[in-house]
């Protein structure tokens, strides 16, 4: 559906996006995740034709966004970071304008407006001036605007920023629902949001793509070895004795040892938590010793995120030469575009 290849954007001497390539398949919800200033908005702006690229190409449904812009843009609905609303008009007038500008057939316009208003639940606000609407409602009008014309792809740049918790939940519900009929791409710097809504996560840091997978796979991939927190009704020395019968323990740390109770942290060579915990359980039950609790710990998406984005920061320093090269190529592309 969308193919981004070797996208680079240089502002003056600052590289916002560097050699970004990814593919977006039909009918899923994608999440762009990255810290502030990672290049999420820049990438989205380029994908929607609002910004040119220094280098690289974007194809929407086979149409190049720079060369075949009109056809490519017809396939996209875009909500920028700040909803682009005319404050002095009403949602009804605004959506009418967007529908006409998107070239929706005249007879379909009223029906389309009803449909998007229904979806975004703004029907009762249709005749108020947009400047009198709350932030949550403005965001909805912005999303409604993106939905007009039934575009195959809907791109939302930080759709839940600045909303209250209730509104955030509602907007997330809406996005999930949109994911049924459209390909949705949203950006966020909030992990839980992406985890809650998206089927595929693209982690971007400092203008580079550092990971792209489902949230579950990312967790699996980066989970590494299992550690277990363990609490038993015995002394630490006795527990360690019992654990000697368990294979694969690499590290044992005693956290607490008093009144016949102990808490231990165990490192292992296991990757699947269940196998490790079951082995521990069997060893303790054989020794007739009570296990009070046992918690396997895995890397959460959060730790993966922090790890990945920090890595990228260290590896980042794009050399001056590379920037120069990209710029020279860009001037070529620019004059080509002007010539067209």
């Amino acid at each position, binding site marked *: 559906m969308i193919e981004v290849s070797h996208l680079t954007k240089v*502002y003056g001497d600052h590289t916002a996006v560097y050699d970004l390539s990814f593919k977006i398949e039909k009918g899923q919800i994608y999440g762009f995740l990255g810290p502030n200033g990672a290049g999420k908005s820049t990438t989205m*702006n380029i994908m*929607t*034709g*609002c*910004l*040119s690229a220094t280098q690289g190409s974007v194809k929407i449904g086979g149409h190049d966004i720079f060369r075949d*812009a*009109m*056809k490519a*843009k*017809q396939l*996209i609905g*875009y909500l*920028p970071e*700040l909803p*682009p*609303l*005319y*404050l*002095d*008009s009403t949602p009804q*007038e605004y959506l009418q*304008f*967007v529908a*006409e*500008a*998107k*070239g929706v057939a005249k007879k379909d316009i009223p029906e389309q407006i009803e449909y998007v208003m229904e979806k975004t639940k703004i029907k009762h606000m249709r005749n108020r001036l947009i400047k009198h609407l709350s932030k949550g409602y403005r965001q909805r009008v912005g999303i409604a*605007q993106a939905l007009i014309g039934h575009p195959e792809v809907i791109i939302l740049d930080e759709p839940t920023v600045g909303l209250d918790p209730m509104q955030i939940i509602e907007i997330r519900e809406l996005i999930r629902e949109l994911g049924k009929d459209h390909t949705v791409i949203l950006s966020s710097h909030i992990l839980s949001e992406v985890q809650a809504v998206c089927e595929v996560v693209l982690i971007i840091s400092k203008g580079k793509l550092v990971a792209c997978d489902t949230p579950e796979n990312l967790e699996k991939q980066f989970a590494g070895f299992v550690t277990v927190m363990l609490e038993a009704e015995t002394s630490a020395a006795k527990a360690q004795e019992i654990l000697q019968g368990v294979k694969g323990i690499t590290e044992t740390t005693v956290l607490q040892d008093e009144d016949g109770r102990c808490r231990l942290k165990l490192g292992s060579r296991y990757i699947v938590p269940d196998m490790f915990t079951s082995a521990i359980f069997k060893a303790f039950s054989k020794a007739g010793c009570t296990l009070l609790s046992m918690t396997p710990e895995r890397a959460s998406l959060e730790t993966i995120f922090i790890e990945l984005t920090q890595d990228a920061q260290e590896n980042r320093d794009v050399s001056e030469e590379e920037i120069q090269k990209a710029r020279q190529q860009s001037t070529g592309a*620019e004059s080509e575009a002007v010539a067209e």
Partner: protein
Amino acid sequence: MKAIFKHEMNMYFTSISGYVFGTFVLLFAGIYTVAANVSSQLGNFEYVPSSMVFIFIAIIPVLTMRMIAEERRQKTDQLLYSLPISMTKVVLGKFFAALVILAIPVGIMCIYPLVLRAFGPVTFSMAYGSLLGFFLLGASLISMGMFISSLTESQAVAAGACFVLMLFNYFITALAKLLPVQPKWSLIAIAAVAALVSLFIWVMTKSWPTSVGVFAVAMAVAGILYKHNRTPFINLFPRVVPNISLFSRFSTYINGVLDLSGVVYTVSVTAFFIFLTVQSLEKRRWS
């Protein structure tokens, strides 16, 4: 384009700007018709548009300041960029909407000569010729104002810069006449104009080699011509500027002569500034 045009028209008439513009033009039209025709009992309606062209200095900036600057400030330009409409159509839609706002009071003014005809002789060719000239002059000034508005995010800056440009347009012929006749003064004035043009090119492209290059080439050509033959340089600006000045061109319509070169010139200037506006919007994508 139709969608943009309709939307712009809505904006003019849901806010007061469209009404204010029309009222202002008609107010002055009324005052001058009373002064030139009614109280002096003359049928020369052409005096009215020609005496009131100076109001363009004040009303064009007011009409054009928000055209594009406001889109940028409210970030609605992002919507325009992401819509499947070309920038040329966006700019044309906006321009034609502003043109209609000018056409409405001018259209009403077209009734005045007919009313005057009931009381005495009126030369219609002169009256309507001058109204056509008035309209074309307004159109070209609107395109300039629109271009200025595309350069900034602030309506106030756009209005201020546009006001200065309108003043310059209005007084350029008078200013040119102040230049001494000697050829060396013409050369100095050419240098000043070339410097302004290259400064403008720098503002648009931020490229020093291009702007300095343009200045150098212009000065080299002027220098060679100056060495070769000084006669054309005598009194150069006072001779040439009235042909370039839009306001001076307008004065030919008043005599009832439909000067085709004047029409073509004014329309070309308008088209040129529409083109520049499109380029200025396209350029923002590249920055």
